[in-house]
């Protein structure tokens, strides 16, 4: 039936990323040889990125429900009830592979894609965050990738008009050939005005909205499901080009027609473009979909059905409209200067039918395209346990003050101001806690309600012990939100791993997911959306397992949130939680001693919850002047980070007997916070902590402009801040010199 189309050969099947047994499955399903368009559709729907074929089985074990969860995984984004009739809609997604090939556009379109996921559901975006992992600073490509990715994130978000309020940037040689760019978007809508992908009603118009379709991005999702090799640069044409201006118009037009009641179902065109969005809408609504590709607005002449179905051109949407409101919707789109075309209709046949130039180019069973995608229970082996490091046996190669100075000016721990000053983090005028703290806090409207937002993962823990590392990633996000005074409500995850066909990588994935699930259950912190990115490998070398967690907390009154900086002289400093001096996998061991080893700190989830709940209650009572969670670099780095924002020093007493000083200063025991309170409030604070059964110690007070740690020469806060701020700009300047 198809003239001038290539014959389907085993080589062509392989080029589409389909394994021989997967192709057999297609033959069995449709009972004939597929057309080239159909083969393209299957490859788009059945690749790892769209079908989650290696991960689905394990993701099912994650907790996704809570009384406040309105929509869990499976839609464009997750939705939670935040009270007063409002809902928060959010998701995180990776754009790792495209960003490595073309950093500016890869990162920019990552931001565009995740924003679209959020406003497709009827939400107005109020914040963006990201989590970035680059290769070693010494790798020749790192500067170029860092500069390009940061400029791309800023270029898109700044123009779109959403504040980018938080994120995380780390460097490790294991990302040399495969960086991570995970972008998160957060939006707000009325809880009873959420829009979904599920189509309803037979014979209703399917409308194409937004930018025109071009040849860009064809097979982007397939590329994202393969390992890299030394020819990856040749894949540049599969990276799309972002157009934040069109996206801004699409946002305004979409929200306007939603408010007018025109929209029945809506799906953005992301990975696998028109194919994935149309199949999703039909399959979810138990309806067939018929598309007439002659009506698709195209950027160039002569595009084939195959190209149109697989294009990943950006800033496009698909909707099922209320037929009575078609004219009204079209007028709104025309006003914003956007394309609007009826390109098909819903049917009762449960078939996905594609027509082009008088020919049927594809006719496939719509439910099976999604439901019958391969599902693999891939073999997996557990990561061998690492020995517990005895802190007493760790020799300090540097005096503690010098070790701390080295850490504050190290690539991972230095100030990321150079990054977030390229992001407009102040637009909308609601950024209460700016980047640089534990979590960002934004006010909603005129307040007093707000949201706390963060992104976290400690990939070296995940590599050493995937289960504990998975737990820790969730616990740290929960802790970071808590440290501002927020109540953590739900999370989105972005699971970045290597090749799942290798049992040790699959083992990392399986155990990280188990750890994430365990912590999420214990902390009432369900997973409402997420994304899996596998095959993050180059020439057979995998990245560190990096399950990024994006956390969202609700703040009842933003005026009561606290930041990390010491505010005044004479405040009392308390250490909350138990300190054993755990040095295994610590930043100290890695960056000061030069050997990354040992078991990572275990997370006691009951203690985590008890300590966090008590800290949050203290902040809510107005008894806390500053609060900081303890993580990388332990107590010493935590204190340093509290002194630097306002240049206020602190004097810290000796630790209790029985803990090695190095372990006490730099250990990364979990479930801990540093608090500063006004000294007259101390009695009240202590009484509250005792009543909650929380271990704590009064360790010092704020004074002067030096940080004086036990067993260390006093450190000038100003000198420390200078070194902390200098590393990143100096690093980038070296490239330009």
């Amino acid at each position, binding site marked *: 039936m198809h003239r001038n189309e290539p014959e389907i050969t085993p080589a062509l099947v392989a080029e589409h990323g389909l394994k021989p047994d997967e192709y057999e499955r297609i033959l069995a399903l449709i009972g004939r040889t597929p057309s080239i368009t159909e083969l393209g559709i299957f490859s788009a729907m059945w690749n790892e990125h769209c079908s989650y074929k290696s991960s689905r089985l394990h993701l099912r074990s994650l907790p996704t429900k809570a009384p406040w969860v309105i929509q869990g995984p499976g839609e464009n984004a997750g939705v939670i009830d935040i009270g007063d009739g409002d809902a928060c809609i959010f998701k995180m997604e990776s754009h790792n592979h495209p960003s490595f090939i073309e950093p500016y556009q890869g990162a920019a379109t990552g931001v565009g894609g995740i924003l679209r996921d959020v406003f497709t559901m009827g939400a107005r975006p109020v914040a963006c965050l990201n989590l970035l992992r680059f290769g070693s600073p010494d790798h020749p490509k790192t500067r170029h990738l860092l500069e390009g990715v940061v400029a791309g994130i800023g270029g898109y978000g700044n123009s779109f008009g959403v504040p980018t309020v938080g994120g995380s940037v780390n460097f490790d040689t294991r990302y040399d050939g495969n960086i991570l760019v995970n972008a998160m978007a957060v939006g707000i809508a009325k809880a009873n005005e959420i829009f979904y992908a599920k189509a309803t009603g037979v014979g209703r118009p399917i409308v194409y909205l937004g930018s025109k379709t071009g040849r860009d991005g064809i097979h982007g999702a397939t590329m994202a499901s393969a390992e890299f090799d030394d020819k990856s640069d040749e894949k540049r044409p599969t990276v799309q080009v972002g157009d934040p*201006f069109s996206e801004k118009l699409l946002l305004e037009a979409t929200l306007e027609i939603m408010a007018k009641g025109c929209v029945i179902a809506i799906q953005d065109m992301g990975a696998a473009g028109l194919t994935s969005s149309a199949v999703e809408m039909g399959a979810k609504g138990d309806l067939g979909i018929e598309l007439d590709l002659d009506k698709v607005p195209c950027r160039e002449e002569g595009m084939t059905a195959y190209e149109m179905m697989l294009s990943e051109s950006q800033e496009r949407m698909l909707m099922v409209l209320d037929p009575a409101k078609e004219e009204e919707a079209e007028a709104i789109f025309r006003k914003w200067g956007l394309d609007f075309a009826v390109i098909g209709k819903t049917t009762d046949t449960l078939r996905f039918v594609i027509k082009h130039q008088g020919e049927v180019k594809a006719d496939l069973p719509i439910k099976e395209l999604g439901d019958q995608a391969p599902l693999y229970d891939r073999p997996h082996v557990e990561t061998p346990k690492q020995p517990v490091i005895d802190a007493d046996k760790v020799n300090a190669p540097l005096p503690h003050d010098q070790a701390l100075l080295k850490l504050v000016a190290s690539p991972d721990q230095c100030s990321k101001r150079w990054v977030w000053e390229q992001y407009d983090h102040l637009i909308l*005028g609601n950024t209460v806690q700016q980047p640089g703290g534990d979590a960002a806090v934004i006010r909603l409207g005129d307040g007093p309600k707000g949201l706390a937002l963060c992104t976290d993962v400690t990939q070296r823990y995940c590599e050493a012990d995937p289960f504990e590392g998975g737990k820790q990633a969730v616990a740290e996000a929960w802790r970071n939100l808590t440290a501002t005074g927020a109540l953590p409500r739900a999370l989105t995850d972005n699971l970045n791993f290597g090749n799942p066909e290798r049992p040790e990588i699959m083992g990392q994935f399986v155990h990280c997911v188990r750890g994430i699930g365990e912590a999420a259950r214990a902390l009432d912190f369900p997973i409402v959306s997420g994304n899996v990115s596998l095959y993050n490998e180059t020439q057979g070398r995998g990245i560190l397992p990096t399950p990024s967690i994006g956390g969202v907390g609700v703040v009842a009154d933003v005026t009561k949130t606290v930041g990390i900086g010491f505010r005044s002289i004479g405040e009392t400093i308390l250490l909350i939680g138990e300190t054993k001096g755990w040095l295994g996998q610590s930043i100290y061991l890695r960056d000061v001693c030069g050997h990354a080893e040992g078991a990572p700190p275990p997370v006691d989830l009951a203690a985590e919850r008890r300590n966090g709940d008590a800290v949050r209650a203290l902040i809510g009572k107005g008894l806390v002047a500053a609060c900081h969670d303890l993580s990388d670099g332990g107590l010493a780095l935590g204190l340093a980070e509290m002194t630097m924002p306002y240049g206020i020093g602190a004097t810290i007493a000796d630790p209790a007997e029985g803990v090695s000083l190095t372990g006490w200063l730099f250990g990364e025991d979990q479930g801990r916070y540093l608090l500063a309170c006004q000294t007259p409030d101390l009695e009240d604070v202590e009484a509250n902590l005792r009543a909650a059964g929380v271990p704590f110690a009064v360790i010092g007070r704020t004074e002067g402009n030096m940080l004086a740690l036990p067993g260390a020469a006093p450190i000038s806060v100003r000198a420390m801040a200078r070194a902390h701020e200098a590393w990143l700009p100096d690093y980038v300047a070296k490239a330009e010199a």
Partner: protein
Amino acid sequence: MKAAVLLFPGINRENDVARALAQSGVKPTIVWHAEHDLPQGTDLVVVPGGFSYGDYLRCGAIAGRANIMDAVRAHAARGGLVLGICNGFQILCESGLLPGVLMRNRDLKFICKEQHLRVERHDTAYTNAYGHHQIIKVCIAHGEGNYVADSATIQTLEGEGRVAFRYCDAAGHVGGKGNPNGSMNDIAGIYSEKLNVLGMMPHPENLIDSLIGGIDGRGMFDSLGAFGKRAA
């Protein structure tokens, strides 16, 4: 006082500035770029920040030629107030209402941060709530804010007292490190000949709340509110 806040495709700080105006008792109305007339009784036209038409051509070049700009030029010629912030400043330069041009920042990067300014004169509709040479903290968020003009224009601006704000450091020191983008003479904002048109790169509208960085930006909107009351 009534303000018309212009909306071009790609503008994104229209609600920020509308909020600041309303807080100071100025009534804002959003006006679509394709309109030919300003609403009846408009005292102040505000051209907000953002990325009109994506800034894909020269910043502000397309918006500067929009329908509504004829009405804005007529309004300015009558002595009406016109305020352009950030992309709005670029649009005013492109539309011929203000001299000079905004080039890419000196270090070629977008910069968003809190920024100190020195108020050069406090006797205009925009600055009467500030003190003499008051140092205020607002914020900047731009990639093309580097003010450049030929030496004759700079001389005229300086000679006629038409520099509205200069970049400075927290201590009020002008010149040197307080200048974030390389602007000539540390210029952050300029007036038209009759002082009724003001264009500026920084965003006073984002610093109107003690919870969100401070309230130094509010003085400009309070000035406009007070000016409106006096005029009425």
